[in-house]
């Protein structure tokens, strides 16, 4: 297990190198000049030249990349072109919000998804199954930003039950929880639907397994057949979906953070792209990728608890 974790970290390092190169080169190719973004439309040629020189943007691609990676290797993510603030600091401020949002919506997604999937599978082909399937599919089909705007209109503006935006209070307070509800639902709906469908099909599969028949042959109560003999097995593919969905979820924060005015990494990222703030884009992408890898590592570790057949030496 320890070896597996070490191996994953080694892989992660290579992965991050690959990603940083990809980001760096694509930002380099992309039209749009960081200096003119800083200068704004009024800046004169010489203004912009001075800024370019100042940021080292006139160096060759390789020089810039090597310089950047050199500092990254030393643990320094560089300074934002725009704000001249250390990238790590900028990210550190926003990361907790994104994490809160991602975790909250994952929790919502997992709870709703698994329950809906279970109902579907256990009442296979009943109207409950139909309803739950339709619900899940509708969940997938609604564009994120649309759902967000709708929720705001209904619950924040009209009913005034929940705040429109935020994440300004700590999550463990009532206020904080209230602030999280709408964005987490917006973000989690898609994932919930995925998980529901995966749970359903995986349950249907496992219910037919030989060992479930064995359990019945032992006279195990139906309830225990489901909860003890079926569910754990059925969760194995669901776990994978959860892990992979986390990636989509992180991507989804970009939109959700925008709609709900949440100060998160996703928004930092689009703003940075729009402003051609290379170091900031790099830093946030690397963070998101690392997060994704870590979550999947956790999923893999959880596997070993769910499925004893999986052993990492």
């Amino acid at each position, binding site marked *: 297990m320890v070896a597996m974790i070490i191996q994953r970290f080694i892989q992660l390092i290579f992965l991050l190198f690959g990603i940083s190169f990809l980001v760096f080169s694509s930002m380099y190719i*992309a039209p749009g000049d960081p200096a003119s973004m800083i*200068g704004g439309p*009024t*800046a004169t040629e010489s*203004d912009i030249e001075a800024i370019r020189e100042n940021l080292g943007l006139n160096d060759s691609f390789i020089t810039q990349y090597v310089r950047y990676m050199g500092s990254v290797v030393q643990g320094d993510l560089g300074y934002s072109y725009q704000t001249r603030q250390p990238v790590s600091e900028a990210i550190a401020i926003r990361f907790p919000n994104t994490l809160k949002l991602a975790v909250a919506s994952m929790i919502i997604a997992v709870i709703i998804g698994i329950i809906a999937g279970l109902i579907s599978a256990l009442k296979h082909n009943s109207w409950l199954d139909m309803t739950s399937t339709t619900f899940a599919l509708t969940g997938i089909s609604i564009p994120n930003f649309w759902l967000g705007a709708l929720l*705001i209109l209904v619950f924040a503006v009209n009913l005034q039950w929940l705040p429109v935006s935020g994440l300004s209070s700590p999550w463990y307070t009532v206020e904080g929880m209230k602030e999280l509800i709408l964005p987490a639902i917006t973000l989690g709906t898609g994932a919930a639907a995925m998980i529901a469908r995966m749970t359903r099909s995986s349950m249907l599969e496992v219910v037919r397994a030989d060992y479930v028949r064995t359990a019945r042959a032992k006279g195990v109560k139906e309830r225990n057949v489901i909860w003890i003999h079926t569910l754990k097995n059925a969760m194995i593919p669901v776990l994978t979906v959860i892990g992979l969905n986390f990636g989509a979820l992180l991507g989804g924060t970009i939109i959700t953070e925008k709609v709900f005015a949440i100060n998160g990494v996703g928004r930092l990222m689009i*703003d940075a792209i729009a402003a051609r703030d290379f170091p900031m884009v790099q830093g946030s992408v690397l963070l998101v990728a690392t997060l994704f890898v870590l979550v999947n590592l956790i999923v893999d570790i959880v596997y070993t608890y769910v499925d004893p057949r999986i052993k990492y030496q």
Partner: protein
Amino acid sequence: ACSSGGTSSEPNNENSNKGASGGEDVLTYASLSDAVGLSPILTNDGASANITDHVYEKLFERNGETMEIEPQLAESYENPDENTWTIKLKQGIKFHDGTPFNAEAVKYTFDKLRDPATAAPRASLMEPVDSITVIDEYTVEIKTKYPYGPFLASLSHSNAAIVSPEADQTQDLMNKPVGTGPFKFVSWVPGDQIVLEANPDYRDGEPALKKVIFKVVPEVSTAISMLQAGEVQFIDKLPTEQLSRIESMKNVAIEKVDGTPQYFLSVNHSKEISKDPEFRKAIASAIDRDAFISKMNGLAVRSDSVIGPKVFGYKESADKAGTPYDLEAAKALVEKNGYGQQTLKLLAANRGTFILMAEVVQAQLTEAGFNVEIETMEWAAYLDTTLAGDYDLTFLSWSNLTGDGSELLYPNFHSDNVGSSNRSQYNNPEFDKLVEASRTTTNQEERLEILNQANELMLEDDAVVIMYHDVVTAALDASFTGLKLEPTGKWNVSEVTRK
């Protein structure tokens, strides 16, 4: 100078007061984007300016109502000769850190602004300056390289605000601004909010608002919802599409002022086809600006004049001086010269009203027989593309923050600036001469005349088609009054009080 195409560049809005803190004298403003930084020297965006305008002060300031330039930190000034500006400063003013405001501070600020090592985005404000000399504690003398007419306008620009030299040397003004303004900096959570508090020692008395919060809300619909829910008390730059929604809110009062920002369609003057006056004429006659204005729900002023009604250099006669809408004439020209054969690329940034203009104009040009395709771009790419002149038609905007016609015509249309701020690539030697004259003349009457000539020249030329001049807007929670909304779109909350 004007900081960035007001409308175009960053949505500038901020200031408001956090619903939760709900306090008496707290105002929360929803800003569409976060400030880049809080040093006037190193920033050049609307969001930052909204804050620095409250924390710092400039030597001069343009009066929002009269559009006259008045002293702010300066007491008075004189011009011993055309190239010399001797400025007397107000006395007894202290920066928020307790250090005194004096001539040294002015010299320090301006030197820093123009030092190439600073790489200040608005270093060009000080471009004409040759030297700055401290005459005595409260007198400073600035020599320009050549006579520079709009110099006072430059000095009234947000980026020419005076910073505390001591503070600038000991801390990062980008994070912890120190000025002489009515509000003091309290805290900044980047991406989230900036908090200012009243400066009790302000020379005109402590502002009524104890606290002003600038909260970042990138989605305008969300900001409006927050206004409705009372989570913020103040937003500005109301989108035309949602005006009716805001108007229907009982707890909100809308303020509108005819403004300086302007939006125009420009052909790419470096393209061969644009050199053909009939082509430009055909375009101008094909565009029904009145129909477009009707889509703006009253948030636009109709005038053909390049120099807008609120900008120095405007004369009423210019209002109707452009080529009028005449579909038949346009059709005839298109028919005659076969303009329809060629596909024209209409470049538009994907923000603000640009898309609206693009869609309407594309349909109108199509009606006239042109073959136009819209290409939208995100802001950064758009800036690059217009700079490189890779388009046939595009929409441009200018916010005229200094409210001076020279500062509109020179960067945008003078041939010196082709390849940088002259994005329409306009190059007309006769026009250039007029603009130069308007800049080097210090007599304001004379300048007005020259600017008007330049304006009419452009209109005759059909160099650009003015779509509209902006009406700047703000919506304030009905329990507050006293907002100073300026035609430039800037605003000031120092006099805002709770009813």
